[in-house]
């Protein structure tokens, strides 16, 4: 035994230094990191030489330089005359990205849920038709759909002077949609505040109704009362303040409209492309989610005497959502990332105005591309934080 272990020990001792997996792992990792650092130093060295040769100063000073170009859609005050900077361009672009993503997410979700349910319909014709739609939309590049919606659909609407009027207040034409411009009068802020108060009331009401139902078993018609509060309170407040909102109607001149508010056609093209494309993915997710809830759940609910509508609301949908929400949220992230394709048709999103025009003007390629990447990276991190929170929350509900 002793001799054995001695011999074994010697052999092990001779070999172990090099064949010890721990040491090997450390050596390998150190070598990898050194190689990575070497590559990084080499790239930075090259970059510095190249930047010097091209007379580009690194740094973020350019954000405070005036940007000399107009942006057609701005949610915050922005104008070339006032000397708005590249920093302002960044904010404007970011807000436009958020705007189009929010609208796209809402519309794609609604359309996707409808399509997903129709795809499951026991009506052969409807189910097949939706299937054809989904296949057709999914198998064509999104960029091509952007171009198709913009150049082939929306730009073949009538010219401005032949705009299609709807009740003589809203006009549709190939440059966009002209609507009456709302002009808030003094006291309008009261109405806005009343909306917030109404929402807060509803949230409280819902909690109170829940507590009361838990305690006494009595139900309270939360939905109808909420609807009444949401419409009634602002209406009463604005009536009391003398309806502090007037509209400036658009007048059609010879070639263009005067007054009114023009919403750019690019917004609609981008929205249409994003909504249609994403809805086809949402539809498949919804279908998979509903199919994932076993039929026994529905039967069990019926056998307990729960009627079909509450069964759907209280038994099927909560369980289907558990399957639906994670891939759905990652589709939302995809939609936000895909909104950067607006650059192809001129929708002024972050990547178009900042990564496109500001980059060309200032030449700060590294800083600008890095800033854009950081923005999208932040979106992605926020989404994954939310996903982790959601997964934790629903796993508590589980048995």
């Amino acid at each position: 035994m002793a001799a054995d272990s001695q011999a074994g020990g010697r052999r092990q001792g001779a070999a172990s230094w090099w064949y010890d997996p721990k040491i090997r792992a450390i050596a390998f990792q150190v070598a990898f990191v050194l190689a990575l650092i070497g590559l990084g130093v080499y790239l930075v060295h090259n970059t510095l030489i190249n930047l010097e040769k091209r007379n580009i100063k690194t740094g973020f000073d350019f954000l405070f330089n005036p940007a000399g170009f107009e942006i057609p859609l701005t949610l915050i005050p922005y104008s070339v005359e006032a000397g708005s900077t590249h920093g302002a361009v960044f904010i404007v672009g970011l807000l436009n990205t958020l705007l189009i993503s929010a609208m796209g997410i809402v519309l794609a979700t609604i359309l996707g849920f409808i399509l997903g349910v129709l795809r499951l319909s026991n009506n052969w014709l409807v189910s097949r038709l939706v299937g054809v739609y989904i296949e057709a939309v999914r198998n064509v590049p999104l960029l091509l759909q952007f171009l198709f919606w913009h150049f082939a659909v929306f730009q073949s609407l009538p010219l401005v002077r032949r705009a299609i009027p709807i009740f003589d207040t809203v006009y549709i034409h190939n440059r966009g949609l002209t609507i009456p411009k709302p002009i808030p009068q003094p006291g309008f802020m009261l109405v806005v505040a009343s909306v917030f108060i109404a929402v807060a009331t509803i949230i409280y009401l819902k909690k109170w109704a829940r507590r009361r139902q838990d305690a006494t078993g009595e139900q309270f018609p939360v939905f109808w009362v909420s609807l009444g509060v949401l419409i009634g309170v602002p209406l009463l407040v604005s009536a009391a303040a003398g309806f502090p909102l007037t509209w400036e109607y658009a007048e059609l001149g010879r070639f263009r409209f005067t007054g009114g508010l023009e919403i750019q056609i690019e917004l609609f093209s981008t929205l249409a492309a994003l909504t249609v494309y994403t809805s086809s993915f949402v539809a498949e997710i919804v279908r998979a989610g509903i199919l994932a809830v076993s039929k026994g759940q529905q039967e069990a609910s019926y056998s307990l005497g729960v009627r079909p509508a509450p069964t759907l609301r209280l038994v099927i949908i909560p369980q289907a959502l558990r399957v639906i929400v994670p891939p759905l949220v990652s589709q939302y992230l995809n939609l936000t990332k895909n909104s950067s394709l607006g650059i192809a048709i001129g929708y002024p999103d972050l990547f178009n105005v900042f990564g496109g025009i500001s980059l060309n003007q200032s030449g700060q390629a590294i800083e600008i591309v890095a800033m854009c990447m950081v923005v999208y990276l932040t979106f992605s991190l926020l989404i994954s934080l939310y996903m982790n929170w959601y997964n934790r929350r629903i796993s508590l509900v589980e048995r």
Partner: protein
Amino acid sequence: MSDIANHPGGSFYRTENIPQSPPPVSTVGVLGWMRQNLFSSPFNTALTLLTLYLLYLVVPPLFQWAFIDSLLEGESNKDCRGIAGACWVLVPKRFGQYIYGFYPEPERWRVNLTFILFCLNLLPVLSDRVPGRTFAALFLVFGFPVVAFVLLHGAFGLEVVPTHKWGGLTLTLVFASVAILFSLPIGILLALGRRSEMPVIRTICIAFIELWRAVPLITVLFMASFVLPLFTPEGVNANELLRALIGFIMFASAYMAEVVRGGLQALPKGQTEAAQALGLNYWKSMQLIILPQALKIVIPGIVNTFIALFKDTALVSIIGLFDLLLVARSAVTDPKWLGLEHESYIFAAVIYFVFCFSMSRYSLWLERKLDTGHRT
């Protein structure tokens, strides 16, 4: 009792079965099918009628527009005046550009030859009815790229066609194939790195994968075309196609890594432990035990990623590579073809659709074939 039953002619119940009568007419055949699938309830009937009406509104005019009132032969958009339907005139006139871009006309046989060889090489890989899968797969990865490069770019006496002359569907296919060819091995390495027990390697791989997956492809391509030239030493000017490819491969391999990781996670730990117990080292156990099983599980996922990547190649048109989409787009900016956006985009969309749809059908077929039922 038995007395009565046995009595000839006097029984009041039958001693043999009634011959089977046909089911009611309304439950079989076309009629039964329609009743069950289209008119099962008043609501369904209404839905069917509404859908039929919508189809009636849309399909015949579309058919009329595309095939009956349309024009196929012509010289320019002037010929389209008075044509109520589609004016396909630019498609046959520009067909060469849609397929080959600016590839010189006398050399286009080389593209065709490459494509045919590619299909022949792919056949044994895709189908198990054609023998020689292993050899074909190896040749596809190691031999064919060389052949394709020699044929497309030119060497050994073939006239050199610089990459900026490549275009159209050719460029789209070359771009997608090269990206797929490189992204799969890199993706596998990244996935292995992400599952590695070495903390530094794991962190670096996670950071790499998450970074590329978080940003839109278009920012990656912009980086490749604006920032990458700053990284290379003086005098080295990477080809524009190559730069876009590098960015695209990085992006694609991050997605591929996540798909492969799914397969690695689906394998029970016992497989790794069994490989270790047999005395196989890390790479041997991966190569012989883990990867063959993991990759088999995720083949459909890999094909789906291929489809997504193939569609995403359309984005290179934004940084000015002359792919199929840019051909379709620039064709209608020519004054000769102004106003033919519908036709040009629809033609390009049909080409993309044919490729993506056949890939997705293949993936479904594969999924059914591989679903042998002994998954863990």
